[in-house]
């Protein structure tokens, strides 16, 4: 009969940001472990978590392991019997090993010949007898961003059991009965206050809340349903989504009562809303106020203080303006919520008082006067201080505005903003509210009366963060500062990425402590959306910018390879995130990053999509050319373009080859010109128009002719075709594998 498996790992508070991932892991790892030991269930494991527990349940788990059936091969039949048909010692030995007669062995045919074989049939063990191994395996399998030692080990010969936080209790029940399991404590630690953790049928509710008895006492449970109900009685909502909806509900009610709504900074707030359900077992909301005079502080300072530092939700009025109120999510059902609210108000007010002090003090000095202080703030041990970085960014921003973008009139502002963009690191406000780097500098620059081109470039220079086409900032936000912003934002990011590569700091696998991927993503995004963001219709190749950004660093040639590969991955990621097919992305980035401009790649993809060349129909002319291009590339492997291929035309005699020559000659210039002005739709249309000639050519003409001179002329012809297309995109990539 199938029975219920229930596991609860009772822990001290697990970091909130780990819980979503851990919850998924628990179910996956448990399913994998159960499958490993041949325990089948009707449905996969369900998993749950609160800060103090990781829970898994399998509703119906088989009572026994599936029987094992396996064939063990013995000696070859040829070596198993003597000439007279008597079993040899090898055969007798093999049979004896399994306690049977030679006559009971099977014959097993393999490519190498026929072998004696024994069919093992092992009856599955009772589930309760294998669950301890499953439990141990599960504890070993879970991984954490950072694990700790807590003087614990398992008796599996693998030593210390590291975990997220110390495990304080363990429920391991199958069919309502406890399955014995023990986490041992090391000899050095063990004593009256440090004990082994043994599996049991006790769980624990909320630390402070209870409907009966003493809060935090042990609660005996039998089934999952019972478990969940008893937890709720003891103020633990096991299901995260229920905690989240209780929070949402109460936030809305309280905000309405305050005559407003929860702030519209959706992105920031949803991050907070994503976090709070994992900080609490039984959430409720209290409302508080802060003195109205703090509303004179910049909105960014108020929201950052509330959201990032106090996990408080700001409240706004109907026009979206901040009210002098906030909402706090707490892990209690307080008898007197006003006590908690008053205390939370005092903490927030103290922080806002600090912020106002910083705001007043910081504005007494200009950003310019802070640049020298940057020499005491480290950027990177091999790359020096922020002072040095600011100098590099200023010079690079100037070059980007004047030379790369061809806007010399923006150069001075770009340079100024570049030099000042890190100056806020030396302000008290940013030392306290580090999230406001850049933003704060922009605000101070505005207060100083610096022009919009400068202050907005500083304010937005950390953006963009996402890859979406509408990720902020927008053209409207940037307004007159669009070009200077692009120059500074690119310069700052390029300098970080290129500098870090020169210092040997490259992101590997999941390790990217300096956030280089995000920075590189920002570079690619700005370049791909340059016209929308700045009104500049420029197809800037990444390679050009990287090479200039590398000027202050030595040895570019040595590490440019990995850097270009890294940037190429970021470009690919951006384009794929925008929904383009991976094959099309390969087609438009084939030329290598030094020559690829993200905007160009994006426009080519848009043109390809418009022409529905991908996946739609195999009969479109462009698709026809793409398919033939594959053949062309194969037969012209290693064939260099003939500089004077046109001169070889005299050797071409077949009508099909003369026709192809004529079509290419007629179309090539138009295709190249269309590509040069960025009209890729026109360029691809030109290529598609070659389709009938190319198809007829391959039907009628044998490229690899006997005659060497003729062969060379024909190869030159197809190589010319190849190069004409590859200048724009390697459209052979868009042909699906196995397509006609």
């Amino acid at each position, binding site marked *: 009969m199938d029975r219920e498996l229930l596991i609860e790992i009772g822990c001290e508070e697990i970091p909130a940001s780990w819980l979503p991932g851990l919850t998924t892991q628990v179910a996956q790892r448990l399913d994998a472990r159960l499958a490993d030991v041949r325990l089948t269930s009707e449905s996969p494991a369900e998993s749950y978590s609160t800060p103090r527990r990781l829970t898994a349940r399998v509703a119906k788990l088989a009572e026994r392991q599936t029987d094992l059936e396996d064939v063990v091969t013995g000696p070859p039949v040829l070596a198993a019997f003597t000439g007279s048909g008597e079993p040899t010692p090898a055969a007798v030995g093999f049979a004896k090993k399994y306690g049977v007669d030679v006559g009971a062995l099977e014959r097993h045919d393999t490519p190498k010949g026929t072998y004696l074989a024994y069919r093992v049939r092992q009856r599955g063990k009772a589930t309760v007898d294998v669950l301890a191994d499953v439990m141990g395996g599960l504890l070993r399998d879970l991984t954490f961003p950072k694990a700790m030692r807590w003087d614990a080990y398992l008796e599996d010969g693998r030593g210390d059991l590291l975990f997220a936080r110390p495990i304080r209790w363990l429920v391991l029940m199958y069919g309502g009965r406890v399955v014995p399991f023990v986490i041992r404590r090391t000899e050095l630690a063990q004593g009256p206050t440090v004990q082994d953790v043994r599996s049991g049928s006790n769980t624990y509710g909320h630390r402070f809340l209870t409907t009966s008895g003493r809060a935090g006492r042990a609660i005996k449970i039998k089934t999952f349903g019972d478990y969940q109900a008893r937890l709720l009685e003891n103020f633990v909502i096991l299901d995260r989504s229920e905690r989240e909806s209780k929070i949402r509900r109460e936030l809305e009610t309280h905000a309405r009562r305050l005559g407003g709504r929860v702030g519209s900074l959706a992105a920031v707030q949803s991050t907070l809303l994503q976090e709070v359900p994992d900080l609490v077992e039984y959430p409720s909301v209290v409302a508080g106020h802060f003195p109205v005079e703090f509303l004179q502080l910049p909105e960014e300072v108020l929201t950052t203080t509330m959201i990032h530092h106090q996990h408080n939700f700001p409240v706004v009025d109907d026009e979206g303006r901040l009210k002098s109120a906030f909402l706090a999510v707490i892990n209690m059902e307080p008898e007197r919520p006003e006590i908690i609210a008053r205390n939370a108000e*005092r903490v927030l007010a103290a922080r806002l008082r600090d912020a106002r002090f910083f705001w007043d003090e910081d504005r007494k000095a200009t950003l310019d006067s802070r640049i020298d202080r940057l020499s005491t703030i480290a950027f990177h041990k091999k790359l020096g201080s922020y002072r040095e970085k600011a100098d590099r960014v200023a010079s690079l921003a100037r070059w980007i505005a004047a030379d790369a973008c061809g806007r010399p009139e923006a150069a001075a502002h770009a340079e100024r903003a570049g030099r000042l963009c890190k100056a806020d690191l030396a302000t008290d406000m940013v030392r306290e509210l580090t999230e406001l780097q850049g933003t704060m500098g922009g605000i101070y620059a505005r207060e100083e009366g610096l022009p919009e081109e400068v202050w907005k470039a500083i304010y937005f220079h950390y953006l963009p963060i996402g890859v979406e086409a509408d990720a902020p900032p927008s053209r409207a936000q940037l307004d007159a500062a669009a070009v200077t912003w692009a120059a500074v934002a690119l310069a700052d990011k390029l300098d970080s990425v290129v500098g870090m590569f020169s210092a040997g700091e490259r992101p590997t696998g999941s390790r990217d402590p300096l956030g280089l991927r995000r920075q590189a993503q920002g570079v690619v995004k700005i370049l791909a959306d340059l016209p929308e963001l700045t009104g500049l219709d420029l197809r800037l190749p990444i390679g050009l910018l990287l090479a200039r950004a590398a000027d202050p660093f030595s040895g570019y040639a040595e590490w440019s390879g990995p850097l270009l590969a890294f940037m190429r991955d970021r470009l690919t990621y951006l384009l794929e995130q925008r929904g383009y097919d991976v094959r099309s992305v390969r087609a438009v980035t084939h030329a290598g990053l030094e020559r690829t401009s993200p905007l160009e790649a994006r426009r080519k993809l848009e043109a390809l999509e418009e022409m529905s060349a991908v996946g739609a129909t195999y009969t479109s002319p462009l698709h026809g050319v793409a398919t033939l291009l594959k053949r062309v590339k194969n037969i012209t492997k290693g064939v260099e373009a003939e500089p004077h291929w046109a001169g070889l035309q005299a050797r071409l005699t077949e009508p099909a080859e003369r026709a192809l020559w004529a079509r290419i000659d007629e179309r090539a210039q138009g295709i190249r010109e269309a590509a040069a002005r960025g009209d890729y739709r026109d360029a691809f249309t030109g290529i598609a128009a070659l389709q009938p000639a190319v198809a007829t050519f391959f039907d009628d003409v044998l490229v690899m002719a006997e005659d060497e001179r003729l062969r060379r002329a024909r190869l030159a012809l197809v190589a010319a075709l190849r190069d004409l297309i590859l200048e724009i995109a390697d459209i052979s990539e868009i042909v699906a594998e196995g397509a006609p």
Partner: protein
Amino acid sequence: MTLQDLILKLSAFWASHGCLLQQPLDLEVGAGTSHPETLFRVLGPKPWSVGYVQPSRRPDDGRFGQNPNRLFKHHQYQVILKPSPDEVQQTYLESLEACGINPRQHDIRFEEDNWESPTLGAWGIGWQVMLDGLEITQFTYFQQVGGIDLAPISCEITYGLERIAMFLQRVDNVFDLEWGGGVKYAEVRLQEEIDQSKYAFGQVDMPADEFAALHRELFDRNYGFSERLLASGLIWPALEHCLKCSHLFNILDSSGSIGVTERTAYILRVRQLAVRIARAYVEASPGSDGQDAGPHA
């Protein structure tokens, strides 16, 4: 509850839970962790439980007595429990109750906050304890000290005494706290805060380069002497002179006397010395083979 009552309550509570009551380290340190009662005792296998107040100097936090929440010098109540008991969180919460904080009327949470001291080669895993949104305690399971993996694991509980007292007395300015017997915190400490802040930020009647040179020299002399003491096997005084270096570095830093490259180099030097001292302590400790450590271990 006055500040001194709070200290008495915590002392009585932890004494009743098996802690020895120790006295503050009579040197300038940034935190109770630097006290040998923590730094040395958590090394090696010998069980040890202790509680003490540690005046903690953070030159960079000096505000000339003008900020209601920030101080050049604040006070920590430091508890070390080795090995860390299974019930340690519960016991900690009971200590709050003993100080008059009823957990059923407040929102008390353990939020992830790991601790690291680059100059001591030490780090641990733990939380900041939040009381109605106010951070009142740092709670850490030490993993490494002096670059040495710890076994067994010690638990460090560090209460911020001024914060908790302000919470209990419902005052918004630390200088309004009642220290004891009707005497205000300002009366006890305000002038000290002003003078110490001026010193920390180099507002001394002395050219800035001389100020820096003097502190560099003091650093070097203490450093060199600490090495001599260590070579002589005098681990305790060696640690004390290493801690002096750490404080002098903090002053050099807060007074803006060192650049960024130098700063990193100073941190590294202090760490290297601290690591050597910790190693020497472990090697010299009879407890390292599992036996009882003597009083001079």
